[in-house]
């Protein structure tokens, strides 16, 4: 298969940014494709893991931040576990996610970035996750109002969904961690 990439326009190499952020050396990949073969979502995406690495090696630019594997990846880490050269591909995906978020390039189907923000917002507020608030606010943001509503009464009855927010966490400490990471700790 022929891989075509756009010529670099920004002059900033995405490959080295990813390598630095994920702590990997992409020159170690010799395209054995074990990562692509083991990947549970390979068949659902435009570019499988080994192809993403190849594109990075060839100097792909920010257009790669739109590739659908970035937000379809399940973080199952089968790719990393089976890589003969121990290249952390799940880490590469996390690095691409971080860069995509920074550049406002993360608008995938299903809107995982919104889900993650809503999730982390409840952690910031209560020190622990508050599923009910997280789910409702995610649904409000995506319009998926009716998905799973039929399960809700049973889950409530079985105590599988807490109605009240969580109590007992050291909220201030968590808020401090979020603030510190934002101001000085960020990955880059």
């Amino acid at each position: 298969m022929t891989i075509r990439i756009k010529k670099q326009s920004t002059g900033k190499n995405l490959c080295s940014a990813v390598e630095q952020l994920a702590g990997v050396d992409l020159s170690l990949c010799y395209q054995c494709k074990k990562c692509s073969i083991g990947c549970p979502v390979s068949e659902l995406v435009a570019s499988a893991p080994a192809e993403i690495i190849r594109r990075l090696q060839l100097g792909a630019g920010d257009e790669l931040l739109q590739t659908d594997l970035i937000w379809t990846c399940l973080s199952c880490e089968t790719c990393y576990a089976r890589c003969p050269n121990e290249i952390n591909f799940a880490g590469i995906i996390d690095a691409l996610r971080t860069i995509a978020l920074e550049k406002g390039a993360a608008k995938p189907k299903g809107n995982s970035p919104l889900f993650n923000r809503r999730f982390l917002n409840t952690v910031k507020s209560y020190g622990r996750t508050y599923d009910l608030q997280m789910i409702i606010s995610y649904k409000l943001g995506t319009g998926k109002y009716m998905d799973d509503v039929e399960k809700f009464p049973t889950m409530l009855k079985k105590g599988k969904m807490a109605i009240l927010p969580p109590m007992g966490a050291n909220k201030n400490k968590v808020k401090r961690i979020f603030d510190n990471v934002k101001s000085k700790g960020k990955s880059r």
Partner: protein
Amino acid sequence: MKYAYYPGCSAHSTARDMHESCVAVAKELGIELQEIKGWTCCGASAAHQTDRVLAASLPAANLLLAKEMGLDMVVNCAACYSRSKNTNYEVVHSSTMYKKVTAALGQPYDGSVPVRHFVEVLLQDFGPKKIKKAVKHPLNGLKVACYYGCYLLRPPEVTNFDDPENPSIMETLIEAIGGEALEWPGKVECCGGALNLTRTEITVARSASIIEMAQAAGADCIVTACPMCQTSLDLRQRDMQKTNGKLYDIPIPYITQLIGLSLGIPAKELGINRLMVPPKAVLKALKV
């Protein structure tokens, strides 16, 4: 046997049964779990998909509390286990991460607190022989497919849990309580849980294929040690039915629930009634 216990957020929401059965089994066997006071969220998938430093710092806050207690940290949620072990790995292997995590926490954490999953404690510290002796209602050959999923096993250099392609910790425990642990091909597959609410169709397809593999092997039930896996396999059976047009009706208890039943702990204390698919076959085999 005394440990610092980290329940994790799902213990009070979608996985109360996981928490209840872990606590009940520990109590019955005389394993002391001291809950970490003021524990906070590990950040789960949302944090590592957003920022690597945040993802390492949130679990570090709890690990520091366990360190102050001077105890190993026991976790029953596979996702919290994975994130906490990842923190240990990151701060030990990268001086940059160590510095950034220290800056985020306002104090240093050196990655020295051992993180253990409750099933590791049961197998390695308590031991299958003693469990076997404590059994009051053996499983009577109940056919059990042990399902591990991702977080316990991968990446192996971080979790160091068991053979990442063919683990056997849960099989040993199931045999100890009188069940028949099946050989089946799905035990290290991914359930798709990370996209359970965002790309539900992927979770449904992944989880359905796992259930079908277990059923083809003749399973009466599938046990898990992960609340994400349990939710995907249990809660999504009705969606699988809608998508694939056939009946899915297999119980997905936590392994600690099965162990608890075999130890004679009342079903209610183990949260058995919380399972979406009622475990009738299990209760019948146990004669409880």
